[in-house]
């Protein structure tokens, strides 16, 4: 996926990035064993989401952003590098979290999902975001 989509990302002008971000989420959602995905800003603002109807988006986004910030602030306190990806495995599924310059990517998946497949897809998604949001664009 990454080659073509990376090119697309580079061709995107600023105005179409909203659509582009939704494409990234939809692409993650299409993966085998994935129930839903979202991108949430560090302030808890939902940038794009594709979640099952049973999941309340704003609540999950608030907690996912809190979790992302918790991982970042803990790392800072410990003088460690910030997290890149995290996986949380539970009885009924797995939640993946990845840090990007615009926020956190969250994937909700079946318990038996291929961890490597999701990690690779998340790495691709992060690369797309890095390519489309030049340094300074998101962070200023």
């Amino acid at each position, binding site marked *: 996926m990454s080659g073509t989509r990376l090119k697309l990302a580079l061709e995107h002008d600023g105005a179409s990035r909203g659509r582009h971000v939704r494409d990234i989420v939809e692409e993650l959602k299409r993966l085998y064993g994935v129930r839903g995905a979202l991108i949430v*800003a560090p302030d808890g*603002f939902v940038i794009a989401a594709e979640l099952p109807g049973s999941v*309340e988006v704003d*609540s999950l986004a608030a907690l996912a952003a809190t*979790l992302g910030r918790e991982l970042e602030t*803990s790392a800072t306190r410990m003088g460690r590098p910030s997290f890149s990806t995290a*996986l949380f495995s539970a009885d*009924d599924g797995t939640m993946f979290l990845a840090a990007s310059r615009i926020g956190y990517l969250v994937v*909700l998946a079946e318990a038996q999902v291929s961890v490597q497949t999701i990690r690779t897809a998340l790495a691709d998604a992060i690369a797309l975001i890095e390519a489309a949001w030049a340094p300074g664009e998101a962070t200023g």
Partner: protein
Amino acid sequence: MTILRRLWTPRDGRESLSVPDALRRAELRRREGRYAEAGALVARALEIDAGNLHAHLLAAYLHVARRATAPAKEEFHWVLGHDPNHARALLGLARIAFEERDTRTCHDLLRRALRFYPEFPEASALLELVRAREAAPPPPVAPAAPRVERLRLPGTGRALIIGRTDGGLIASQPVTDDAKDISEALARMLHVATAALRRAALGPLHRAIVEDGRDAVFTRTDGELIVSLALPRATDPTQGLLDVNRLWSATQHELGLAAGPPAAAPSSTPADTPGAVPTRRIS
């Protein structure tokens, strides 16, 4: 005067923009993750109308999005100075208080927000998280520290933390000054993750893998005990999970929590942890 200000035309050649237009565009940029552009538009709006509450709120959000806590707090306080019951500003400050480990302030701010806006899902979710943390049972009588020198780290193992979900440290290897802080941070992080998993209807947390540029930290928990093993980032996840499972069984055995002998699982590499010569092989 107000009309003139709203139809302000800059002298520096920039496109003329009304305050509502600038803020609308800023919102749009924010939705696209274009925080720097959104920030510039908010700054322009504030040049025209320095007392615009929406602009200050947006500025606060953008500071948070850029991980700039101090100016974000300033902006949220500005909003609350003009509208003491502004639910979004209360939530924003509550989130920062949580990050700063100020649970009491976080709790109070969320309660204030919910008093005026009971149907506020983000605030409810965070309040539930804070309450669960506050309601955690007091630590039990300290169990005998497991003889961690007998817990054999894999050869590539960098650190082992054995703690409780209330943040208490049971043991660490190697023994370091910051092990207690790490145990506490680990417990906090797992607590937030547990709440997120619950919201996602995925059930209770059992395992976690957190990767940074250096390490992959493999963790196992049962809601009371936490065993966390730091390995090099390149470690295969399956092998890392096997290693932490082995240490989990061995820890339970040492703590007297397991009925039988610890399960044997192959370690990823020969067990030759520097500085920790085991007296007896546990697994």
